[in-house]
């Protein structure tokens, strides 16, 4: 196990996910020496290692996000299969009114290994929720400030979308901007809804809104747009470790948990690009679990990162401890792990905001039977969504929401249908026909509901609960407020209206189910799950009293400590947070360089 005791780096980064990778790339491109510490293994850096994840998935195919990744007792992850409430036995201790149902991956590449790849930008009003709708909190920066970084983030991640699809949502773009790649082809299911919903509008809180299916920007290789970058075009990146040429998404339909051909972006692409370009100036040390930020109480600067090493990711094999030194430190370990590291270190928390305002998108399914075959269970998880209810005056009263059209039919299907029809006595040609007739008409919406920051939704640590290396585990306290539940109710009604309009038989039924919360509100109950969008535990803001970092992700308390990750987002809006995280990180990297 190589360590870097004694070496002095320009910057030490904790976490090899998307934020850490983009930071490392930006800093090394500017000539800096960077050490990146990753708690998990780096099995996936070459093609054989990546293929081992694919093999693991095919041996035990399951849609759960961490299915391809072998458990690592040295650096466990929160896992949707390991969630009870309350629970002190799961890695993520749960003690709230509701369990926090999202997880992440501790492997080099981070949660982008299993993410879906959705890359919508936040909407302009998402940055000023308080001043426009009287809810939540405003950001200290507006959409316009982030717009150029969104463009750079879309280039770094390789986003497929067309500007004209996104403009009706109120998004602005610089003159002549095009996304790196054209929009992902919209699925046959999408086209069914586009056709059926023509002219449909719904009323929310007394105002009418159009309901339209719009192509979803996604970090997944489509057809490169020759007009990108002033006509220089875009070269897609795919098979990392085995050639550099871009491969388009070929429809493996396994975006979550793992794209077998790497047409979906993952942070290894950025790390390998950085390593090729930077050579020795980028050191990546995996199997290095940060256990403490060493705070100099006199200078208020961070003097080092203490980390534990282990020999074998398959079994508990602690092998030592080391300290990494840099002039600047960037913690980019995801909103739960970053908060945990700050809390165990007593760092950056004069505001008492570290760990607080934990958010996710409570996630609601609705499902039904289309009147004709729409041939789901093909293509990327989702290629379009009903995006027009992401903003509106109703946000003064209840949450907004983004409704993805699922290309993958019903949750648990088609395996569940096989079980059901066999149990009902069907076999032979009758079984085959029945499966065809039922499953080819499955449609489903996956609805992300906005959640407001709430200081009582939080990550804490408690010395009574430690991991196998003796580091306190994260403890989640979580609930979902009426604002979101009322948004879920509105979304459920919109879905019913859409199904009615499209002639879809509504089969949605909420009941106690493993992996879902059953939440009641005004006599209606919903099954809610997590979206994997872990946001808000080290919010950026305008001052040291109410926030942890400034808009450059620099901590108020320690001038040489930056926190990159979705934890910085003070509100979540209805956008999947990775693209915004990437944009904020690229902006922060400029500040790190200024500080050096």
């Amino acid at each position, binding site marked *: 196990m190589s360590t870097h005791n004694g070496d002095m780096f320009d910057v030490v980064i904790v976490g090899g996910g998307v934020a850490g990778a983009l930071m490392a790339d930006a800093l090394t491109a500017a000539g800096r020496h960077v050490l990146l510490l990753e708690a998990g293994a780096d099995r996936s850096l070459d093609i054989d290692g990546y293929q081992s994840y694919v093999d693991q998935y095919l041996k035990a195919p399951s849609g759960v996000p961490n299915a391809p990744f072998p458990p690592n007792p040295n650096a466990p992850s929160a896992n949707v299969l390991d969630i009870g409430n309350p629970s002190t036995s799961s890695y993520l201790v749960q003690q709230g009114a509701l369990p926090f149902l999202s997880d992440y991956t501790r492997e080099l590449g981070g949660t982008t290994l299993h993410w879906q790849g959705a890359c919508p930008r936040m909407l302009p009003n998402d940055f000023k929720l308080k001043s426009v709708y009287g809810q939540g909190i405003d950001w200290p920066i507006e959409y316009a400030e982030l717009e150029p970084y969104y463009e750079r983030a879309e280039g770094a991640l390789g986003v497929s979308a067309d500007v004209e699809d996104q403009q009706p949502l109120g998004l602005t773009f610089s003159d002549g901007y095009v996304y790196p790649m054209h929009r992902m082809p919209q699925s046959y299911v999408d086209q069914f809804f586009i056709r059926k919903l023509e002219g449909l509008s719904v009323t929310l809180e007394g105002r009418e809104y159009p309901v339209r299916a719009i192509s979803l920007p996604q970090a997944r290789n489509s057809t490169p747009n020759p007009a990108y970058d002033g006509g220089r075009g875009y070269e897609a990146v795919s098979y990392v470790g085995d050639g550099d040429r871009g491969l388009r998404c070929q429809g493996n339909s396994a975006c979550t948990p793992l794209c077998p051909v790497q047409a979906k972006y993952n942070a290894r692409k950025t790390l390998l690009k950085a390593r090729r370009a930077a050579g020795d100036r980028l050191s990546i040390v995996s199997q290095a679990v940060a256990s403490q930020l060493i705070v100099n109480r006199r200078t208020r600067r961070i003097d080092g990162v203490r980390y534990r090493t282990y020999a074998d990711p398959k079994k508990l094999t602690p092998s030592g401890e080391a300290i990494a030194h840099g002039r600047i430190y960037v913690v980019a370990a995801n909103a739960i792990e970053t908060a945990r590291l700050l809390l165990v270190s007593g760092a950056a928390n004069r505001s008492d905001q570290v760990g607080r305002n934990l958010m996710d998108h409570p996630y609601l399914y609705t499902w039904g039977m289309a009147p004709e075959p729409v041939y789901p269970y093909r*293509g990327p998880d989702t290629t379009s969504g009903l995006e027009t209810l992401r903003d509106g005056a109703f946000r003064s009263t209840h949450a907004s929401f983004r409704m993805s059209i699922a290309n993958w039919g019903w949750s648990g299907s088609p395996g569940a249908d096989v079980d059901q029809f066999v149990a009902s006595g069907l076999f032979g040609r009758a079984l085959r026909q029945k499966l065809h007739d039922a499953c080819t008409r499955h449609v489903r919406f996956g609805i992300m509901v906005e959640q407001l920051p709430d200081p009582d939704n939080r990550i804490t640590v408690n010395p009574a609960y430690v991991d196998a290396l003796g580091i306190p585990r994260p403890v989640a306290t979580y609930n979902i407020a009426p604002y979101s539940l009322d948004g879920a109710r509105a979304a459920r009604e919109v879905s019913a209206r859409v199904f009615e309009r499209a002639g879809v038989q509504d089969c949605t039924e909420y009941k106690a189910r493993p992996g879902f919360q059953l939440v009641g509100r005004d006599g209606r109950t919903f099954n809610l799950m997590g979206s994997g969008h872990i946001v808000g535990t080290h919010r950026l803001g305008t001052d040291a009293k109410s926030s942890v970092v400034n808009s450059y992700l620099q901590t108020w308390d320690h001038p040489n400590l930056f926190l990159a990750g979705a934890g910085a987002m003070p509100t979540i809006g209805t956008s999947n947070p990775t693209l915004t995280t990437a944009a904020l990180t690229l902006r922060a990297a400029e500040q790190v360089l200024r500080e050096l």
Partner: protein
Amino acid sequence: MAKKPPVAATPPAAGPSTPSAGDREVFLTLSSALTGFSPIELQGTGNPEPLLDFLWTIIGADICSELLTVAASALAHSDESERDQAIRTTLWSSPKLGPIVQALVRLWYTGKWNPLPAQWQETYRWDHPDPNAGAITVSPQAYVESLVFAAIAAHPPGAKATGHGSWAFPPIVTAIPVTVTT
């Protein structure tokens, strides 16, 4: 705590250690009748041999032989509805053989073996190396070639990708064979 193998279970009687060519032939015809896929389609999956080998291991040679003997007479009917009725009477609704053929249909369709009901196991045989495990995917190939995806004109997630943009068009739907065992 791990369950223990039931005391009542009788050790499997000695039987042929591997399936014979005749066993394989009956298994293929039975699988075709149970799944609604023609023998040619099933051969195309590459799975008839490994799935019978798996069944042989997990259920035991003696019960497998019995299953195939009963199946052979049901399959002797040339009329499809008579054949299906015979399958239903002698296999599907048999307390001993029914759970196996039902698990076999699910195995073909999903690539997964679902442990047989506890009652069956207590009476006949312990069918699982890990009594606490749920359904297991028999092999990557059993999953990749599982029939449900062919039945619904789709493909298994993570394999047999349909090509860039193919999802924007209706798939080619394979007609169900008129009669599956010829």
